[in-house]
């Protein structure tokens, strides 16, 4: 095969393939930066524009591509892949597409390397420019910013498409025959973007499983290789851009990262973040055939701009039990989470529990008084809002969950507002309301009125003196 190719042609072809691979990566990553790309045509050739196309070289991207290639070239059985994924501010990530530059064994011996192959590679890059604006990830990448970012990862070796979900589509960008094989460029993209909303609730094994399974041979080590598709200066704190969740999800209201530190997360409606280990587990390098130049356990040492995944976020264990809930801290706070279990709390109604049980007969919730109206609207509303709680009197086998609303202060009162309401839902009956109505009737009331009036008239001087003191 190679013997048919002159040394010069072989050298040229290798150079073309190398620079084609680098330019392919540039085009793909730049198309996912979230901005429109504009480059100028130039009638005078500068000699540095490969394939006669003005494609800028982002140094970081070139560096990553060269690192992934590690001196090798895409060839038969050695594909170069650029994986584009989305990562939300909550830490969820989802693969969107994988671009594959592959080579198969079908050779075109007669083709002219320096002319035809070169021009066809140029044409293929133009096709790539067009196709990168057409796949669904383009629109997503144009809207990235506060709620999610787009990451890229370059790897070399076997193509991995399992992370794209079911029903992913493939589009072939094009092929170029060469004397040593046929170069093909294609894109496999996810079609099922709806996964994002269901994942938000399922903080259980399967979600973790998906992430782990995808990286089964190279778990979180390669999360460290994910790079943001955004051109930011190094050292900028990426975490600062995350402010909330994308609108498409029906998220538990307590799960936003901007929630105040004291907000509790309701168990069972977990909106927290799946656990991301700060220290990734060791694994083999993704890139087969690659010299393992990356040390294991590397993620904490990586420079901040290049590893989104190594941010320390809030952790809520995926196996949240009903009686365990996690205090959610604001995103990117390095405090350890405190797990509060109900066993460590005093039963808030411990003092009241037996009393409430005993007083059920007199409980106005259970047995509303026959005639008296609530003496104040507040009490009325307490009745209506907390009537549901009357059925939930603490029993021995029933665990009360103490809700601590945000911004509640417990320094003024010995208890917070919620507890206040609950405690005072059973106020003692007012003396005037507990009059035995059957004893007095309206007529008797009226009869006693003249007597009362006479007494008041007699004491009128006292009343006047009292009023004077008030003035």
């Amino acid at each position, binding site marked *: 095969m190679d013997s048919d190719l002159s040394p010069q042609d072989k050298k040229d072809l290798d150079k073309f393939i190398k620079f084609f691979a680098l330019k392919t990566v540039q085009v793909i990553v730049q198309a996912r930066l979230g901005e*429109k*790309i504009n480059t100028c045509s130039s009638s005078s050739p500068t000699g540095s*524009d490969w394939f006669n*196309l*003005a494609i800028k070289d982002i140094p970081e991207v070139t560096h990553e591509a060269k690192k992934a290639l590690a001196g090798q070239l895409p060839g038969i059985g050695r594909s170069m892949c650029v994986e584009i994924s989305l990562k939300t501010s909550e830490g969820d990530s989802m693969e969107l597409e994988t671009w594959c530059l592959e080579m198969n064994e079908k050779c075109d011996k007669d083709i002219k390397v320096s002319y035809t192959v070169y021009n066809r590679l140029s044409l293929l890059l133009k*096709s790539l420019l067009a196709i990168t*604006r057409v796949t669904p990830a383009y629109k997503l990448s144009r809207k990235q910013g506060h709620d999610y970012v787009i990451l890229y990862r370059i790897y070399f070796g076997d193509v991995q498409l399992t992370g794209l979900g079911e029903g992913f589509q493939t589009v072939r960008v094009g092929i170029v025959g060469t004397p040593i094989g046929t170069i093909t460029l294609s894109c496999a993209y996810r079609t099922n973007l709806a996964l994002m909303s269901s994942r938000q609730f399922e903080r259980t094994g399967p979600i973790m499983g998906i992430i782990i399974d995808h990286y089964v041979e190279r778990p979180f080590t390669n999360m460290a290789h994910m790079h943001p598709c955004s051109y930011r200066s190094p050292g900028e704190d990426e975490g600062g851009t995350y402010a909330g969740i994308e609108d498409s999800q029906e998220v538990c209201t307590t799960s936003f990262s901007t929630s105040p530190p004291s907000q509790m997360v309701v168990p069972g409606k977990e909106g927290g973040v799946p656990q991301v280990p700060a220290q990734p587990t060791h694994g083999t390098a993704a890139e087969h055939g690659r010299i393992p130049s990356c040390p294991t356990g590397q993620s904490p040492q990586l420079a901040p701009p290049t590893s989104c995944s190594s941010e320390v976020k809030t952790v809520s264990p995926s196996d949240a039990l009903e009686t365990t809930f996690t205090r959610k801290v604001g995103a990117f706070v390095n405090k350890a989470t405190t797990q509060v279990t109900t066993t460590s709390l005093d039963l808030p109604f411990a003092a009241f529990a037996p009393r409430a049980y005993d007083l059920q007969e007199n409980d106005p919730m259970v047995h509303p008084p026959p005639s008296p109206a609530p003496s104040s609207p507040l009490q009325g509303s307490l009745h209506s809002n907390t009537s549901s709680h009357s059925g939930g009197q603490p029993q021995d086998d029933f665990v009360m969950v103490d809700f601590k609303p945000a911004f509640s202060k417990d320094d003024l009162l010995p208890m917070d507002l919620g507890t206040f309401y609950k405690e005072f839902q059973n106020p003692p009956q007012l003396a005037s309301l507990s009059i035995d109505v059957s004893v007095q009737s309206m007529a008797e009331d009226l009869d006693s009125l003249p007597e009362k009036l006479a007494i008041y008239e007699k004491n009128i001087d006292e009343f006047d003196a009292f009023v004077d003191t008030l003035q």
Partner: protein
Amino acid sequence: MNCRSEVLEVSVEGRQVDEAMLALLHTILLHRSTGKFHYKKEGTYSIGTVGTQDVDCDFIDFTLVRVSSDELDRVIRKAVAEFKDALGNSGSDGMGQISLEFYQKKKSRWPFSDECIPWEVWSIKVNVVNLANEQERQICREKVGEKLGEKVINIVEVINRHEYLPKMPTQSEVYNVFDTSLKDVQPYLYKITYQITDSLGTSVSTTMRRLIKDTLAL
């Protein structure tokens, strides 16, 4: 050698006609344009650099990629505007076809004028629909965006078959293959024509041939 002919069909709303046509025509021209040739001694030449520009459509959820050449853009926009006007004037039906034809010139002896031999023709059939309310328009935005995406994939597929392309010409022949009138890029010789279908859907009743770009003197 037979002329390669490809047909693309789109259904769009009235105000989307311009952008849909521009999107497809520019995508084709992106692949059929090179940098300016600079011939050197001994028959060698160097090629200038082609830049690209992303353009967001206003009425369609789509971003088109075109060659960075304002001159070329102006020419294409003018042709599309004329097509749209013709569509609008034709009546309520709104069906038409715009064709982008790449050709080579072949010199003939006097008194015959040069021949134009097409080697690739792209026909874009347009069906203009009328929509009743804003909600339908919004859906149409997205749908047409997706359709255009599919058409781009079709175009790319055809082009990457690497079928016939004119040979790279010598300096004296370059004008027979390429349009050298632009400052910054050099598309293959092309012309844009359009036809409006009448309301009966039969063959053309009003044929207007506008040779937007043709160096042939008739």
